[in-house]
């Protein structure tokens, strides 16, 4: 059901640790599917120097966090903000439809971590664009 890339990131997660002196920490969760994702960022001069995660969740959630942290390292905050769940899912060579929202969780966690950093710096948090949950089967179903 999962691609080889998903399984690789699940079995050998990248950046799976805590950054004790993180500049931004984002935690998002979805009670319904019982997943919680926490992203840590080390930021210097608007650039993400280091990123890591902790995840309580399914295979897709773990792989999405692993891939997402890889993708944002070295990016500016603006570039990282623009990384969509679609891009994460594509980098993972696809996710099963009912697991797409696990990558949404990664996108949301990155946004939360960036906003946490902005708030710490006394800046306005950035606004979420179109609800990422749209098109995800995760929230709606019973």
């Amino acid at each position, binding site marked *: 059901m999962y691609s080889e890339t998903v399984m690789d990131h699940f*079995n050998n997660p990248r950046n799976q640790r805590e950054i004790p002196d993180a500049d931004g920490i984002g935690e998002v969760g979805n*009670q*319904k599917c*019982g997943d*919680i994702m926490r992203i840590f960022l080390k930021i210097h001069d608007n650039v993400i120097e280091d990123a890591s995660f*902790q995840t309580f969740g399914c295979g897709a959630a*773990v792989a999405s966090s692993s891939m997402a942290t890889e993708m944002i390292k070295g990016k500016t905050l603006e570039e990282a903000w623009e990384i969509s769940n679609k891009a994460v899912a594509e980098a993972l060579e696809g996710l099963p439809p009912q697991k797409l929202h696990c990558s949404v969780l990664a996108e949301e966690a990155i946004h939360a971590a960036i906003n946490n950093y902005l708030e710490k710096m006394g800046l306005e948090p950035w606004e979420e664009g179109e609800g990422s949950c749209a098109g995800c089967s995760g929230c709606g179903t019973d």
Partner: protein
Amino acid sequence: MENKHEIYLDNAATTRTHPDVVSAMLPYFSLHFGNPSSLYSIARSSRTAIEEARRKVAAALGADEREIFFTSGGTESDNWAIRGIASAHGKKGRHIITTAIEHHAVLHTVEALEKEGFEITYLPVDEYGMVSPESVEEAIRPDTILISVMLANNEIGTIQPVQKIGEIARSHKIIFHSDAVQAIGQIPVDVRTMNVDLLSISAHKFGGPKGVGALFIRRGLRIDPLLYGGAQEQRRRAGTENVPGIVGLGAAIERAAAMMSEKAERMKKLRKRLIDGLLTIPKSRLNGHPTERLPNNVNIIFDYIEGESILLLLDANGIAASTGSACTSASLDPSHVLLACGLPHEQAHGSLRLTLGEETTEADIDYVLGVVPTVVQRLRDMSPLTPKELRTR
């Protein structure tokens, strides 16, 4: 890509069709292939084979042959029992009593009836997943037409006090259905002592083939068909009979009944070894009832970690297990059974179900006991929920 070290501990999802059962089925594909409804002699073998299988199923359930109706599996049996009674007795009343922990084949069927104007009472369960007969009695109303309570739960293995519930149903003259899909071959099932009017079974849960099951319907009970068409099965269930499948069901239930008590003893020993070993992991708990449970069922929660990721890591180690029921593993919903037992959402996602089978050995159990702690630790190290003292890094 099948693993060299393969330990199958998901016998509640499905079982290997036993090779003896397959041998019994084989002649009915290409040799005795006649349509059992046909008149000519080459169809006689199919007809005889079906009736022989019906006798075997009846014998295993303590029923009369004329009370056994073959279906395409547990799901059809459950759907038929509930919808057939709702349709035949809907004029008398529109209230149905069931429990919060039934299989989806029951729950989604009564939900569909709810949309058609039926009222459903979902009985709660205690922390062990047990329904109290008193709660059944209290839920009964003048317009109650059906009570449906499963004999044993597929996720946590809890065995319900079905005999008492049956007595209550009988004393109120209410029709009583029980989903016994998980119980066959594991615990004794007798439709008379259970006081049931309808009972569902499915062959692939006890060494038979997938796609065939049966519904016991007490003689004289009025029920509408679910499948309309030809005159098969005493005109109650249409469709050309799945002759090889029915033969397989007969062979499997006969086999399962013969070896049941010996097997149950062996399962209980292995189960104890497995549960005792797993509970040495800190922050782990057994779901379901400690004693009133299926001999082959183990269901454990490990705090702070999620079910699917345990499964994937176990699979990488050659262990096939499950979280919740297989039928819902494609969906993301937490287990409705664990929620009903009072577990919070995160935990209702996190249980590990290991269901033993006749091929399970002590060595298998020991191997599993070697693998699980490592897997649990690895996931706990990854989880944001794990407290410091349980982390290795």
